[in-house]
């Protein structure tokens, strides 16, 4: 096994593109090391991107934020502007693992690990975040929901790395929120999760919304029917009921050690309504 700490993105891409055998990117390593220690993978090459300066920054631009793929989630939590603009995304990032893990882990890594239960992904999908992907044949930008294609699988080609996650500038009267269900209070993995992002119109009703669910399908789901249920409303009881129903209907979970189909479908609706209320309040809704 070879471990390399390249100094530039191009070097990292070159190493990955030329790798023989199993090559893995190490950002925080909070998933990779667990899989190695558990004897699930035996990498031939590990490319550590924490040494690449350009990937280790959060940049605020006129269009929003660019979060480099080596930025630890704890650093996101310390960025006041990001926290103010995208509180749901940041709270999701700061639920991953423990305080110690948050000092290492990244949202790009969380995305590329491609777990349907990843905490930051529903929040990113709801936020309409995009992934900037760099590879041997140049750069491309795709919606974050198009990165994972199934448990442990991504659409990235050989040699490609997620360079950054891009979050748009917020219209005023916007808010987002993320909630997950875990049997414990912390140090756990989502049994069901929901991210809601919405913007209010001048009339105070929801003008646009995105609702995403985690851990209820092979990938995180963007549920347009759920968004439709609350657009044009002030989250009255009927809208909330429709939102919950849409989420429960869209969810197609499995029975496993973490929860049952029935439980996940039901709680997906409960969490989505609760997250919607928080997002609505954050947007200034009354």
């Amino acid at each position, binding site marked *: 096994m070879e471990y390399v700490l390249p100094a530039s993105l191009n070097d990292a891409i070159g190493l990955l593109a030329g790798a023989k055998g199993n090559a893995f990117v190490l950002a925080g390593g909070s998933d990779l090391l667990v899989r190695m220690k*558990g*004897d699930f993978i035996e990498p031939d090459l590990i490319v550590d991107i924490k040494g690449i300066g350009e990937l280790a920054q959060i940049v605020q631009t006129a269009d929003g934020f660019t979060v480099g793929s080596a930025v630890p989630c704890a650093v996101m939590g310390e960025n006041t502007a990001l926290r103010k603009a995208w509180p749901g995304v940041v709270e999701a990032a700061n639920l991953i693992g423990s305080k110690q893990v948050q000092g290492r882990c990244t949202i790009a890594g969380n995305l590329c690990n491609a777990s349907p239960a990843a905490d930051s992904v529903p929040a990113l999908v709801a936020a309409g975040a995009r992934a900037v992907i760099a590879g041997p044949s140049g750069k491309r930008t795709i919606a974050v929901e198009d990165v994972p294609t199934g448990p442990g699988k991504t659409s990235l080609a050989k040699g490609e790395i997620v360079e950054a996650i891009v979050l748009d500038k917020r219209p005023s009267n916007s808010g987002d929120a993320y909630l997950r*269900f875990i*049997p*414990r*209070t*912390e*140090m*756990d*993995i989502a*049994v069901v999760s929901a991210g809601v992002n919405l913007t209010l119109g001048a009339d105070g009703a929801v003008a646009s919304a995105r609702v995403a669910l985690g851990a209820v399908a092979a990938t995180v789901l963007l549920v347009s029917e759920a968004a439709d249920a609350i657009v044009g409303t002030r989250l009255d009881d009927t809208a909330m009921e429709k939102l919950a129903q849409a989420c429960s209907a869209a969810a197609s979970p499995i029975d*496993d*050690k*973490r*929860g*049952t189909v*029935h*439980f996940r479908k*039901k*709680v997906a609706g*409960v969490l989505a309504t609760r997250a919607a209320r928080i997002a609505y309040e954050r947007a200034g809704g009354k």
Partner: protein
Amino acid sequence: MDFDPSYTAQQFKSVGTRPLRPDGVDKVTGRARYGADFNMPGQLVGRVLRSPHAHAIIRKIDTSKAEALKGVKAVVTAADLPDLTDGDADLYAILSNCMARDKAFYDGHAVAAVAAIDARTARRALKLIEIDYEVLPHVTDVDEAMKDSAPLLHESVFTDGVDPAPAKPSNVARRSQYGHGDVDAGFADADMVVERTYRTEQTHQGYIEPHACVASVNNDGTGELWVCTQGHFVYRQWCADLLGMDVSKLRVTSSEIGGGFGGKTHVWAEPVALALSRKAGRPVKLVMSRDEVFRASGPTSATSIDVKIGAKKDGTITAASATLRYTCGPWVGMWAELGAMTAFAPYDLKNVRTVGYEVLVNRPKVSAYRAPSAPMAAFAVESAVDELARKIGMDPVDFRIANVAKEGTRASYGPVYGPIGIGPTLEAVKEHPHMKAPLGKNQGRGMACGFWFNFGGQTCTDLNIGADGTVTIAVGTVDVGGSRASLSMVAAEELGIPYEQVKAIVADTSSLGYNDMTDGSRGTFSSSMATISAARNAIRIMRARAAQMWGIPVEDVVWEEGHAKAAGAKHGNLPPLSVREIAAAAGNTGGPIAGHSELVADGAGVSFATHICDIEVDPETGQTRVLRYTVVQDAGKAVHPTYVEGQYQGGAAQGIGWALNEEYIYGKDGRLQNPGFLDYRIPVCSDLPMIDTQILEIPNPNHPYGIRGVGETSIVPPLAAIANAVSNAVGVRMTHIPMSPPRILAALEAE
């Protein structure tokens, strides 16, 4: 020795105070040496290959490729651990569990092991071992395993304890029965009856430190074992028996212990490490991974329990019965029997009957877990008692008080109680402010009682007076809960010297006589008795030495406040001699001064507790939150109250985890789905409130200071207390532990 262990009321100076524990700083600074912290020159890495099948015949094992791998120094299978058990069925079960023989009985059952120069080589070698399995149908569920149609684990097991003996083999290995009176007549007398079936899932002790050892066997038949254990003398006996070694030639040293709770009263990989070392001719270090700890060590039983209790309208219980079915793993235990013995222990019952069935299943071999078997029985019984109280319209505390066992009561498991603490804990709970605190929406309160026998057993302690008058005590009960502090306090109390002048160590098996394990809440009870006896023997010698120094008869020397004093007017002018002065002169008065004690600590006083718990339930998700928790328990005499409180809190914390989320989850393939702390959910700190404690002291008449064991009882009431709280919060009776959110939500929706 003419040691009298009877209780005598006395004022204490050292006992009952709260000094710092001697092992504390080393533990929090990382200097303490746990099982995996021992190393030897030339040591190899041991790794175990485990069955992926729940039930399979092992047709053939080919280790040749692994043996040929560079860096591999030994490969062992069952052939390297020949059967030396000589018809001892319990020992044969231990042997078969350490290394599968003709059959693998559960997912994780050891089938081979390697010793190699490093972990990577050992891991590769495991992959090169070829095993030809014939996979058999399996059964993991207790009720399924009892059916005639169930896959049979052993053709040779016929239910024991049934008359006439059955003609067909079965997975029901043994039946046991306890009780007295006429249960049928009692139920006929009842105005109200509650009858229900309860289930609990299998849990693990969840000790943070995995099993770890370093084994070194020499070619002259001697060996050493450094190991994390609750009982190094017992480990020595089993390992020596299984490897055909002389007991006295195997020296076992116990490490600091990162939790055991009963799971370290059993050998798992230690005999395998010794066999690897014997074959390789080098020391072998073997540390189990968390996955291995869950799949192949120490869980408690999964259970299915029927309870029926009847009472008069005035609140008198007329009859009580229970049928308890407990899983044992692949070999018989006495787990259901312990459940049958403890189930109704808190109550004074005219008519009571309990029946236990030991059931064999394709799960790991069950080992003790803190008051083994009692929490599940208490969950079932205390749930039914609560429901019956409500049905009658009585307060659940008053209902229990009306039927409580007291001194002179014949226990449901046979003996007549001496002075016991169950009544006082109930009275204390009745008066506790917790019972009167207001509850909010979706909140419920529950309470429950619990019992544990406690144990005494064989104990040996040495007490040595140093030349400067300071004192070392060498004990043979592994310190799992602060007993070195407690025993130092007891030695200080008896000798009349400050606690700081006593140092306690846990001696290895070659330095001290045999001691039973630290189990049955016996560590402080039994070793304090031996320490008192050893100190009194040392005092006798010191009095004789003082008499010699003074030239007066020994009868005229008394021991007071750490000094020899000449009694009587005729010696009035002699200044007292301190321990230090007597010790300094020892070389001229007969040599070193020591006190020894070897005894069987009989009369471990039984232990009772009552717990109160407040829970909030989220009705939309089934999520629970423990809001408040109170433990009231009898300690006899709390030697070090802080560590007694720690035992109370620790048992409650484990019980909360068991009640709400912990469970072994098996797939249809019989494989354990959650062998790790991510999906086997023990509580984290933020899951628990501060657990309030109240220590009652009803002296044990069979101990000089009145001490009772305190370690285990605290895990007995929580399952029931929490189930009663959740049931009261949601208005639905919860009968399946753990009450995980999906189970609570399903129960709510079913209503």
